[in-house]
Every structure is written in structure tokens, then in C-alpha cells.
């Protein structure tokens, strides 16, 4: 083959950083798809069709990772250090563990009380925590050299908040149906 596999950032012509303007990335994705999508090659040779399929798949894949803060952080850490945080991992941080327990309890209480507006407030709170965590992540990734311990912890925290948000959604689904 002609050249080494590009990483997900390179595919979009980006520097490998944690901070990403997702709406802008999404319009860039559309511009790229516009020129490589299989529909553009419906009457081309099979060679070109296969390439187009591969490229489109690759773009969709790259976008799915980059738009999601947790996956983006994991990918970036792996890219820069080779550390794989995609498998189950725990981090030793008693303070955060406490907070985690508290948040889980709060969610259980609210779910039990079936109070939608309270659930929504709780979702807002988690979203705020998530935002703070993302900012911190961006800063950690700018440090030189990288503090890999801190980064792993930060990823773990973000992952937890992400998971909590999706649990809130499930709880809401249950309440509404």
C-alpha cells in the first residue's frame, strides 16, 4: 500500500488535541463525505466503489470517536502514549469514589420517587460536572510531559459521568413509558 494509515485527527486535517469544535468537525465530515461517499461512485468501477466504501467507513468511524469526549480522550491517550484505557479499569482516588457513591445514591433516590423534574435537575448537574471534567482533560492533554496517571484518572471520571447520564436517560425512559 502507498502510505501509512492516517490517524483519526489527520483524516480530518487536525492536530491531535483534546479540544475539538464538534459542530465544525461535523460539517467537515459532510464536506468529505460529499466527495467519497459510495453514492458518488454508483456508476464507477468496482475498484473505486470499494475504495469509496472503505474511506466512508473510515470517516464515519473516525467521527464517531472524535465527537465523543470519552472515546476521544481514550484514543488520544493511546495515540500519544500507547496506554489502553478502553478495557475495564479502576483508578485509586478515594475522594472521587466517595463522590461516585453519593451520585449513584442520589440517582436511585430520585428514580424511586418518580419525579421527572428532579431527574432533569440531576441531569443538568451531571452535565455541568462533565463540562468541568472536559475542560480539565483539555488542560491535562496540553501539559508537557503528559501526566499519564492524572489523565487515566480524568478519563475514568469522565467515563463515570457519561455512564451516569445514560443511566438517567434510561430512568427517564422507564418513567415515561
Amino acid at each position, binding site marked *: 500500500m*502507498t502510505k501509512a494509515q492516517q490517524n483519526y485527527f489527520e483524516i480530518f486535517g487536525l492536530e491531535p488535541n483534546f479540544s475539538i469544535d464538534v459542530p465544525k468537525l461535523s460539517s467537515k465530515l*459532510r*464536506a468529505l463525505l*460529499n*466527495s467519497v461517499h459510495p*453514492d458518488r461512485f454508483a456508476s464507477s468501477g468496482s475498484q*473505486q466503489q470499494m475504495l469509496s466504501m472503505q474511506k466512508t467507513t473510515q470517516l464515519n468511524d473516525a467521527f464517531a470517536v472524535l465527537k465523543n469526549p470519552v472515546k476521544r480522550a481514550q484514543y488520544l491517550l493511546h495515540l500519544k502514549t500507547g496506554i489502553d484505557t478502553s478495557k475495564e479499569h479502576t483508578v485509586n482516588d478515594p475522594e472521587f469514589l466517595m463522590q461516585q457513591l453519593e451520585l449513584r445514591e442520589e440517582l436511585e433516590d430520585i428514580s424511586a420517587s418518580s419525579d421527572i423534574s428532579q431527574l432533569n435537575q440531576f441531569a443538568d448537574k451531571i452535565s455541568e460536572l462533565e463540562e468541568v471534567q472536559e475542560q480539565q482533560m483539555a488542560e491535562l492533554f496540553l501539559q508537557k510531559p503528559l501526566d499519564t496517571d492524572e489523565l487515566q484518572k480524568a478519563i475514568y471520571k469522565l467515563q463515570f459521568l457519561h455512564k451516569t447520564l445514560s443511566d438517567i436517560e434510561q430512568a427517564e425512559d422507564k418513567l415515561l413509558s
Partner: protein
Amino acid sequence: MALLQISEPGKSTDPHQHRLAAGIDLGTTNSLIATVRSGKAETLADLEGDHILPSIVHYAKDGTVSVGKSAKLFVCSDAKNTISSVKRLMGRGLKDVQKIKEFSANQLTASGTGMPAVETDCGMKNPVEVSSEILKSLVKRAEESLGDELGGVIITVPAYFDEAQRQATKDAAQIAGVKVLRLISEPTAAAVAYGLDTGSEGIHAIYDLGGGTFDISILRLEKGVFEVMATGGDSALGGDDFDRAIAGYLVEQANIDKGDRSAYQMAMIKAREVKEALTNKERVEINFMHWKGSMDRALMESLIASIVDKTLAACRRTLKDAGLKASEVQDIVMVGGSTRVPLVRQKVEEYFGKKPLTDIDPDKVVAIGAAIQADVLIGNKSDEDMLLLDVIPLSLGVETMGGLAEKIIPRNTPIPIARAQEFTTYKDGQTAMAIHVVQGERELVEDCRSLARFELRGIPPMVAGAARIKVTYQVDADGLLKVTAEETITGVKSDITVKPSYGLNDEQITSMLQSSVSHAEEDMKARMLREQQVEAKRVIEAVEAALAENGDELLSKDERHAIEEALKQLAYIAENGDIEAIEEAIKVVDKSTEEFASRRMDASIAKALVGHEIDEI
């Protein structure tokens, strides 16, 4: 006359550049075909001027097959040999469909394939064959009124159709002998027709309630790109269910034996009349067998309210998947005959907090959108006109220990897509691994749809947990799945294009193809040769166009020369060779253009990136 006129490579080739393509809305109750003529998309009528073809097929004792209006005449008089709503059976197993009342238990039997089959006086007919009759009838209509053969069609399917249902639809097209350019979702097609018509950018919801299926799709339209953000629905929910609810009431009022099939059939027809009449009237008088009575709109609405509510629950879930609130949807486009029901409009308006758009023809819009896209795909429109980006409607997963379904590609992921997951062996010395492919949102495998099972054999014996088995799911632009499994340490591989558990295999398709009426007179071999020649011509045209576009900048003299030689060779063989020789020559051309194709792709990506940066300034 020579079938093909192939000129020297380099010279411009095609005398008639415009190729015929059509869009087909293969509906539960009604089907339509549309095409683009002098820049305008329109549905095509039969000789009597009717655009809608009722999706009904009748098999007469003497073997005559009739489709549409003429088949409809037999619905009551020869119910046994008349098949309607066959779309509800597509891609389903016998067990799934025995609940459907229109097909009485003794009418449906198991065919050898696990698919249900309807017993008629002409023998057993499976849903794929029946659908292919409807397709043939539409294609014939188009070819007669356009005066030429169709180069390819787009067939629409409900967005919420699963893998098996999509595959069954494609199989039906193959048996009907039409080339499918792409399957696209019905609501996406509607959005294309609507979006191009109004040119309105932003976020649109398409609410499509037809005879047998319900779809809700949330799309974003921006600069000609139609991006499906999320889709949801129910592939067994529609106007038929309204009819059933009303028929239930009629049967009860008239005190009729529940097992009386022909009475039930009549109740369904009456129910539909009543329902449609109540769209414009407040009350209708009913004469049903010996029962005389009446029904007002309020009573009907009480019978169907829970069905309408089901559609709203799906809307809620889908908005959430799209990450949107109901108020963020700019407009709601109503598609499908059942959106004429006042209660449906009212409830949709309440839910979204704004009036839905009902001014486009809900019957034709899907076929028209499909025709527009077909015209683009077959190459009649210049590039960059428009692009459809679709998603998979249901999560794809694999069975893991304990009967759990692990998701590999979650629903609403944009296609085409590939995802891989690693698994390992759980016993020492294990040399084979069973892979069970499932589709659906539930956690337990038994609650999901089973798509296929296959086995990866020849894993070298290792201790438990040492093997690395990478399972890759690849979904193409039609939403069809291919699964590969590979032991990564040794490279032992196994792959299948998923043929759903209730599908036809290639042999069955070939045998149906051969027995199918339209091909009986025609020698299969001759047809295949002609197809191969057309394919050769297509390849030559495509490569020449590419050479003309950027052969100079991307190829050295020698490289270009090699490609041109291969093309010359192919052109010669296409006229003088047999099927295999042509196939071989196409492969040679493919090989010779491999590097060129990849450079072209890279160049166009680079251009798109640069173009995008400039756009932004």
C-alpha cells in the same frame, strides 16, 4: 445490430448518455413507480391513468398471475388465491406472522426455507415471489411508458426494516430481474422530495404512517446533504391496525363467529371504508352483513387512540436518540395514507407543538424522492447535487455467554460502517467458535431477532483465553451486513454475507429466476452475456471519464499507457469473448487501475478538505 458499440478508448463513447432509472415505493397496500423526465420527477400511470398500484396479487388456477386493480377484484370472491399486505410477511419466520389475522393460520404454511408460504391453487407462494410480481408489474409499466429498458431502480423500504426484511426486498428485485441501485428508507425518500421542493434547510421530522408500517425519521438538511440523525418506528404498525380495531368492533356487533375467515375479510374491507369516510365526515351509516348501524368519529377515535399513542412513544424515543427536543424540530412532514386520519394529525400537532405539514401528496412523495435519488445514482445528474447519509435503524450484536446480546454497532450509527470486537475461547484446546449474529435493542438474545449463525473453525488449540478472535461487522450503504471472524494470531478466517435465517439462498433465487415467467422465453445465458457486456461498457466509460478528469496530473506516461492497453483489451473481448473472458478482462482493468483509483480518492479528499477550509473563511 451490435449490442454494444465500443469506440476506441480516449474518444468520447456514449451516444445516449441519459440512462433510465426509477424509484419504486413498494408499499403494504399501495405501490408506485416514478422517474425523472426532462428534469422533473413524476409517478407513472397505467393505461387507465391510475398511478397507484394496489399491492395485491392473484394467482388463478390456470396459472395466470394478475397484480393490482385486477387482482383486487378477487379479494372477496377468491380470497384463498389473492394475497394482499404481503410486505408484512417479508423477512419474517412463520411463527412471527401467524399472529397476523389477514393471513389465516391454515393459509400460511412453512416453506422449506423457514419462511412462511401462502398456499394457492398455483402452489406455494413465498412472500419474496409475491413481491417480485408487484415489482415486475411496476417495471413493465415503466418500460412501456418510457419505451426503453430501466438501467436500475431504487426501492424504498421502511426505515425500521431490519436486515432480514431488507434482504428479502433485494431478493424480490433479483427475481423480478431488476437491478437495484440502492435500497433507501421511505422517510428519507420523502425528505428528498420535500426538501428539494421547498429548499428549506434545518431539522425536519418525517412522520410516515402507511398501511402496515410506521416510521419516524429526524433529518438535518444542509447544503444539499440529507443527514438522518435518528430513525425509529414499528415495522408492524399502520392503517391496517386501525382497520383491524374497527373490524373487531363490527364483528362483535354483528355477532359473527371469529373463525369465519371470509366474514372477517369483509369486515376488514368495511372497516377501511368506514375509517376513510370518517376522515371527512362526522358519522357514517354502516351495513355490514345482517347488521345495520352507524359509527361516529368519536367512537372510531376511541378504537384507534392507543395505536396512535404507540407512534408518539416512538417519536419520543427517536428524538432522544437524535439528541433533540420536540420544539427543536423545524417542521413535521406527514407521509403515508394514514396521516389523513384527523386524530393522527391532532395528536402529532399536540406532541410537537406545531402544525404538521400536510400539503404534499402523501401517496406519491416517497416514490418521487426515490426517483430523484435514482437519477443521481445512475449518473444523470452531476456530482455534488445532493447526498443522503443514512443510519442503521436497529442495533447489531452478537450472542455472548449466558444468552446475552452484546451490541457491536448501536442503532442510529451512520452507514456504511465497520466495527470490530475481540473475543476469546473459554475452554482449553477449543478449536471452533460459534458466532450468532443478532439484531435488536434488548439485552437477551431470545428477545432479539436472530440474523445468522456461523462457525469459525480451525482455531489452533490453545489454553482458554489465549486465542484472539476478532469479529468484524460491516454494514454497506444499503444497510446490509457482512460479518467476518478471524483468529488474529494465526490468521484463520471465516466470513459470511449475512443471509438471514428466514431468507432464500442463492440456489433458490436462481431456480425462481429461471422459472419466473418473464425469463422463460429468454435464454438465461444470452441474458447473462448481455449483462456482462453492459458491465464491461460501464467499466470502460468509468475509467475513461476518470482518465479524462485527472489522468494527466496523477499518472505517468507509462502508467497511463498500461491502463489504456487494458481498456483496449477489454473493449475487444467485450465484443468477441464469452462471459468468463469478459469477467477476466474486467478484473485486469480493475487491477491496472488500482493505484490510480486510490490516488484519485486521495486527491478528492485533499480537495474537499481545502475547499472546506476556504468555505469557512
